[in-house]
């Protein structure tokens, strides 16, 4: 507990240091052992053999060396930052007095352009408070007396918070008892807007308190807050509780509604685009009509001879009970008949949103699967892969709605298909949204538990399924060792 904040960067640098030290030492036997370990499928992490030989694992040594920054050091960094800011302003020909952080970012991006994908790997110039992790200052005064009354518990901020919340609970209970005695107990009000917000996660709480917590601590804290909420507290306590809730951007709030346009005859219409797989469609839905649908100038009955496709076209109207009330003109290209039908369906559904009330849009969004979105479920491509528990677990438990978008799980699995003699480590990486334009470039993959390396995409193997498998090698290793296999779950419309 001597230095509670172990920064990710620091730990990474430390490991990188170890890693590079070992790779420079040409110890053939060592690599053979490592290779043997991999081929045995020990299930251990890549770094483990390196780690144990270099660092003596003494449990009781306080973790102090790299991660503690003294006050003078931070002060010096802040001074240097301010001087550097003024120099930068001069370089850019701007006024040093009114040079804001956005200007700094723009200037750095201009002077030191970087095509790296990983934003954290690009050159940054920020205030040292944002770069160096928050440290705990010395907790006691000159006479040795600690400042905080719960210092001797070890987790002073956490316990102080618990104390405070429990104090509020007691206060509210006392108040309610008094009201009950008088006989003026207020009726139970509905739960306020807890929808659209979530409790902050353990990491966020740790960051807030600058302290390490255990899972039980976190659970206890959330339970106590829920107890406080359940007691019908007043507005002050509600505000206090809201400090520990975070907004969740709900999907339904993001549906854009196309504005209704009017053509030369004064008829209202709405135009929208839609896509499915590789088909692109644009639909123009007229407010008045009799249910005629024209696709590429051809009547839909002739364009889609198969009933299934016509059912797809019918669905948005059927859902809103507006069959035969709208006229549609659409153009479509690409894909097969089924995907074209799906693309037109999406376009029509989106266009209909502008004629329909908000509630119905909400209803559409919630009731139907993906009526208003072109994403679809990824098919089960892992069914024919050799099974390894760790890899499958992390792959199947990918949560597309999770906030942590760029966390990678590096687990080792042997046998990712025959790779011909490479020591291959299959490492699934989670990407919330895969950017197609970054393929074939230099991609920097950061993962908390392994070496930060600039990876070069050497090949892209198209598989029969919609996910792309990309092999990564690291430029730091002397041998072209395949470091990992990036699985990017792409959208099903990708052509590349």
């Amino acid at each position: 507990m001597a230095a509670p904040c172990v920064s990710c960067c620091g730990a990474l640098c430390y490991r990188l240091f170890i890693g590079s030290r070992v790779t420079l030492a040409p110890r053939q036997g060592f690599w053979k052992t490592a290779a043997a370990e991999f081929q045995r499928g020990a299930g251990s992490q890549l770094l483990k053999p390196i780690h144990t030989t270099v660092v003596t694992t003494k449990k009781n040594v306080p973790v102090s060396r790299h991660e503690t920054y003294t006050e003078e050091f931070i002060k010096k960094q802040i001074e240097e930052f301010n001087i550097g800011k003024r120099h930068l302003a001069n370089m850019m020909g701007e006024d040093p007095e009114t040079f804001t952080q956005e200007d700094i970012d723009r200037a750095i991006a201009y002077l030191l352009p970087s095509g790296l994908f990983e934003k954290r790997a690009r050159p940054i110039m920020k205030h040292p408070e944002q770069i160096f992790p928050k440290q705990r200052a010395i907790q006691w005064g000159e006479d040795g007396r600690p400042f905080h009354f719960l210092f001797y518990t070890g987790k002073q901020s956490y316990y102080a918070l618990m104390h405070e919340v429990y104090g509020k609970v007691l206060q509210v209970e006392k108040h309610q008892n008094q009201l009950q005695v008088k006989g003026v107990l207020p009726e139970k009000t509905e739960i306020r807007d807890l929808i659209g917000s979530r409790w902050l996660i353990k990491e966020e709480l740790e960051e807030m308190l600058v302290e390490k917590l255990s899972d039980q601590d976190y659970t206890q804290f959330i339970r106590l807050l829920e107890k406080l909420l359940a007691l019908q507290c007043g507005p002050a306590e509600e505000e206090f509780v809201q400090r520990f809730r975070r907004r969740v951007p709900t999907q339904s709030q993001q549906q854009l509604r196309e504005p209704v346009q009017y053509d030369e005859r004064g008829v209202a219409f709405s135009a929208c685009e839609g896509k499915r797989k590789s088909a692109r469609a644009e639909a123009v839905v007229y407010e008045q009509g009799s249910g005629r649908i024209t696709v590429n100038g051809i009547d839909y009955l002739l364009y889609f001879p198969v009933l299934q496709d016509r059912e797809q076209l019918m669905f948005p109207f059927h859902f809103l009970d507006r069959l035969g009330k709208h006229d549609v003109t659409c153009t479509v290209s690409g894909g097969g008949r089924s995907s074209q039908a799906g693309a037109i369906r999406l376009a029509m559904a989106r266009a209909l949103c502008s004629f329909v009330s908000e509630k119905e849009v909400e209803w559409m969004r919630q009731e139907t699967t993906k009526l208003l979105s072109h994403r679809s479920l990824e098919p089960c491509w892992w069914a024919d892969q050799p099974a390894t528990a760790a890899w499958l677990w992390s792959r199947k438990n990918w949560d597309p709605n999770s906030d942590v978008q760029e966390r990678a799980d590096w687990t080792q699995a042997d046998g990712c298909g025959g790779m011909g003699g490479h020591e291959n480590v299959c490492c699934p990486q989670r990407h919330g949204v895969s950017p197609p334009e970054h393929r074939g470039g230099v991609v920097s993959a950061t993962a908390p538990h392994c070496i930060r390396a600039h990876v070069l995409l050497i090949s892209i193997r198209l598989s029969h399924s919609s996910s792309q498998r990309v092999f990564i090698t690291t430029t730091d290793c002397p041998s072209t060792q395949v470091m990992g296999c990036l699985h990017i779950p792409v959208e099903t419309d990708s052509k590349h």
Partner: protein
Amino acid sequence: MAPAAATLSRLLCAGAWRRPQLCATVARGPVRPGCRTLGSGPAPAVSECEDHCGVGGLAPDVREQVLREPLKHADFFNVRELFSVRSLFEARVHLGHKAGCRHRFMEPYIFGSRLNQDIIDLEQTAAHLQLALNFTAHMAYRGGVILFVSRSRQFSHLVESTARACGEYAHTRYFKGGLLTNAGLLFGPAVRLPDLLIFLHTLNNVFEPHVAVRDAAKMNIPTVGVVDTNCNPCLLTYPVPGNDDSPAAVQLFCRLFRLAVSRAKEKRRQVEALYRLQGAAGQGAGPAP
């Protein structure tokens, strides 16, 4: 009050416990009560060592006088007036546990048993409580770090509030293993350990003696503790036999300790102010007496 006085004198003269030394004189040279630092922390000079109040420019001999002054009186802070046997009785301090829960070493403190429930002898309690409060006040006067310890969830908030109110420290949470014995690793090399531990509840949640009792004894930290009939009073420096389960009793004890500490700190401020004034007056009067 004769039996109480007799008990008090008996306790004070009990040589085996070395208590008269602790009460009467300040001779604790090598142990250094004021600065329990561990490891490679800077060891301050002896004169500063015994006193950790904000001295603010007092001469060393004046400071020594300030520290010696309370030790010349038996009850410098007049803690006796804070309570009476009557008030202890009304707060239900005399109620112990059932006879089956009785701890062997608590037998001297038990007055008797009524309907199988042990009754604690309040005369002895009063005497012990007076000693404990006196000691606490002295420690607070000398700027010692006082840690209130309790592991009862029912009174955790009360104990923490009490500690906060008198400007001292509290620990009513899970007691980590090496907190006192390995504090250099847990907190930092130059951490100052508590100078006094006050136990409002000597047992933890599974009715075993609190680890801090043993650890404080290991680290030579004096302890004051409220011991119920199922507790072990052995390792405590100043045990106070009394009820630790009723809210009234616990509130009374918290109030008493808080008043003792506050009084002592207030007294310290007054005495220092007095000596500072005297010093200024002495200088103003000039070298001639």
